[in-house]
């Protein structure tokens, strides 16, 4: 008797669930409508020092947009900790914003879900054409050969931040341009009792950004041309080892940094404990930690030899934020207008100035505001020597698998265990096996 009842309960529940499933999964219909032309919902990522500051930056611009078009934009600044999950649930349910910011490295993964409006020539035409944007930024908007899933909004690049006083004290006259120089300078700095370079060893994304650049410098890629993972390629192994060796062998990164994941290396730099920092757009951050801009200098990230450029001379990833339109929007014209507004030269100047990033829009980039010494380095890097992270649908898995491998290698180095070519290869092999097989 009891089991019959249990089965009955099960059946009822099951049928309810199936009903839910049947109508679940969001709307499958294609691209958007114009049912509510007067409002838009916009999810902004947290770019400024706090969510409150973001609102202060964005709201006046949205008001401007409303004055121009009569469309009211409802702004929500979504913290980074929630943004991807929010996008995923929005994708699954079809219930999301009209326009949203995405991290540019997510572009290809999100593109694969089909939740974002593809920017074909026609759509680009509505916002003034594709050639308004800088090429390197466009390289990080989706898989190659497909219409971009988003348009670039803010661009950033890595640079070498160095403490002028520590450099002077250690007798270093100019920032290192190659890794060999950096290691040599590191010895001088250590002699003065400071730590040479910081890293966020336990931060999966930071690790990826750095080993990606090292791989480029070794002339290798993490993925083959047809998008298959190739992590155990000897050149990739060498590249990863070179990065971890900065701690394990060259000892320019203190072992302590192996556990950093909360931007502690930035604090160390701001407090003058540490001479150098590889970071993207650290200016605002350093200021809030009490380090004034005249205390540090900015130089391009070192390369193996020579000067930064393309290919093996790459010295940064293309970091940045893209602006995407959610396919299920019920105000597709308004959404496009809003993208046009946000990527207009005037708005680009305002927004990128506020966030100390570089405009990915050519017309705005040439503005005098972005010609300061610090911005010049970033601009130069973006224009000539930055490369986009692999634009593959499995990017997210790649970040997790390889980023974790590097984190574990740092942990080994910190614990005093040897980091050898074999141990690096073993970790990368494990990472590769975790990638989807298709």
């Amino acid at each position, binding site marked *: 008797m009891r089991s019959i009842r249990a089965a009955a309960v099960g059946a009822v*529940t099951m049928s309810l669930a199936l009903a839910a499933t049947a109508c679940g999964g969001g709307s499958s219909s294609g691209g958007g409508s114009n049912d509510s032309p007067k409002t838009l919902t916009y999810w902004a990522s947290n770019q400024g020092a706090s969510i409150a500051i973001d609102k202060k930056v964005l709201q006046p611009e949205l008001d401007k947009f409303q004055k121009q078009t009569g469309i009211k934009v409802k702004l929500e600044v979504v913290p980074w900790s929630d943004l991807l999950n929010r996008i*995923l649930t929005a*994708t699954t349910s079809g219930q999301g914003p009209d326009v949203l910011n995405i991290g540019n490295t997510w572009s290809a993964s999100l593109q694969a*879900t089909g*939740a974002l409006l593809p920017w074909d020539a026609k759509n680009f035409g509505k916002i003034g054409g594709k050639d308004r944007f800088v090429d390197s930024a466009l390289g990080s908007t989706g898989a190659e050969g497909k219409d971009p899933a988003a348009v670039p909004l803010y661009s950033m690049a890595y640079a070498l931040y160095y403490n002028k006083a520590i450099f002077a004290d250690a007798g270093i006259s100019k920032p290192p341009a190659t890794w060999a120089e950096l290691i040599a300078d590191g010895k001088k700095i250590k002699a003065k009792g400071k730590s040479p370079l910081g890293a966020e060893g336990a931060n999966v994304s930071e690790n990826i950004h750095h080993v990606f650049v090292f791989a480029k410098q070794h002339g290798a890629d993490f993925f083959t041309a047809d998008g298959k993972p190739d992590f155990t390629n000897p050149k990739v192994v060498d590249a990863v080892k070179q990065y971890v060796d900065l701690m394990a062998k060259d000892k320019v990164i203190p*072992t302590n940094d192996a*556990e950093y994941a909360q931007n502690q290396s930035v604090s160390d730099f701001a407090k003058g404990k540490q001479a150098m920092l590889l970071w993207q757009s650290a200016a605002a951050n350093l200021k809030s930690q009490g380090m004034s801009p005249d205390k540090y200098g900015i130089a391009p990230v070192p390369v193996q030899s020579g000067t930064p450029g393309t290919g093996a001379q790459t010295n940064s990833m293309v970091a940045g934020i893209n602006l995407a339109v959610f396919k299920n929007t019920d105000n597709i014209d308004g959404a496009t207008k809003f993208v046009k507004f946000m990527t207009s030269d005037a708005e680009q100047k305002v927004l990128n100035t506020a966030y100390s990033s570089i405009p990915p829009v050519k017309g705005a980039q040439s503005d005098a505001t972005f010609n300061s010494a610090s911005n010049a380095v970033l601009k130069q890097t973006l224009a000539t020597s930055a490369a986009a992270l692999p634009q593959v649908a499995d990017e997210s898995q790649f970040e*997790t698998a390889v980023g974790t491998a590097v984190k574990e290698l740092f942990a080994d180095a*910190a*614990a005093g265990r040897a980091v050898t070519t074999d141990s690096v290869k073993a970790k990368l092999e494990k990472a590769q096996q975790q990638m989807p097989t298709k």
Partner: protein
Amino acid sequence: MTTTTLKEPVRGDSTGAAAPEQRRRPGRIRRIGLPYLLLLPALLLELLVHLVPMVIGIVMSFKELTQFYIRDWGTAPWTGFGNYKVSVDFDAPVGKALLHSFFVTVGFTLLSVGLCWLIGTTAAIYMQDNFRGRGLLRALFLVPYALPVYAAVITWVFMFQHDNGLVNHVLHDQLHITDKRSFWLIGDNSFWALLITHVWKGWPFAFLIVMAGLQNIPKELYEAAALDGAGMLQQIRRITLPSLRPVNQVLVLVLFLWTFNDFNTPYVLFGKAAPEAADLISVHIYQASFVTWNFGTGSAMSVLLLLFLLVVTGVYLVFTSRGRRTGDV
């Protein structure tokens, strides 16, 4: 009261719909329908928030639900037991990692539940008698429980730091127990960091529940035992612990289930990529589903977990309910 309801079995399914009873005499409806009526709100809520999503989760586990299909997952292809095969193929990396994570979780859960229960019960028993400052201590002990998880765990992150943390400051600089600073947030020690953090946050709950449970033990029992010459320890063994059994039965079980499925502590402590030594299964499943966007495999892992916990719970209930009121349906 109870005997009357037994005489007249209720028809209709056991989900508690009182509707089929409406044609009967009002008095009888009230008597027979009442328990179902009382259960109805709980049942509806459970159905909406727990059961239906759980079944959807089980359905998901049979689908290939990757990022290519999540937008319209009606179209995701069925994979049969494909997701399960991947999860339990212990020779392949995914299965191996899952198995490792499973053992870590079991070890962590047993230790954490044991410690939480032991500390909570001991504290509750010690604080049964009134003494000066008892009220203050009681409130104090609830502080870890009252703090938002994020804040509590981030504080421990702060204390476990290698260079700047309090733990190394005390162990190394002040007590000289370790000859060099240890890493707590990476490497093998991370297991202990996780355990300490979790116990710190979790034991007040056991304390709270046991403390409330102690209030229901009639004083006469102690008095009688004291007259028999039973000492403090014997009173605890013969009266306190047996009387707490029903409370403990549920308490230990839910502590076990929650600890096993706890996500927040490891996630805030270690982020998306937990060190191998502290790779709890919930973070593992989170990685499989939300980070790598393979909800099918993530669901399959969850279902396996559900089956395991069902078995454990079943065995546990059979063993602990012996002699209690179990046969009454």
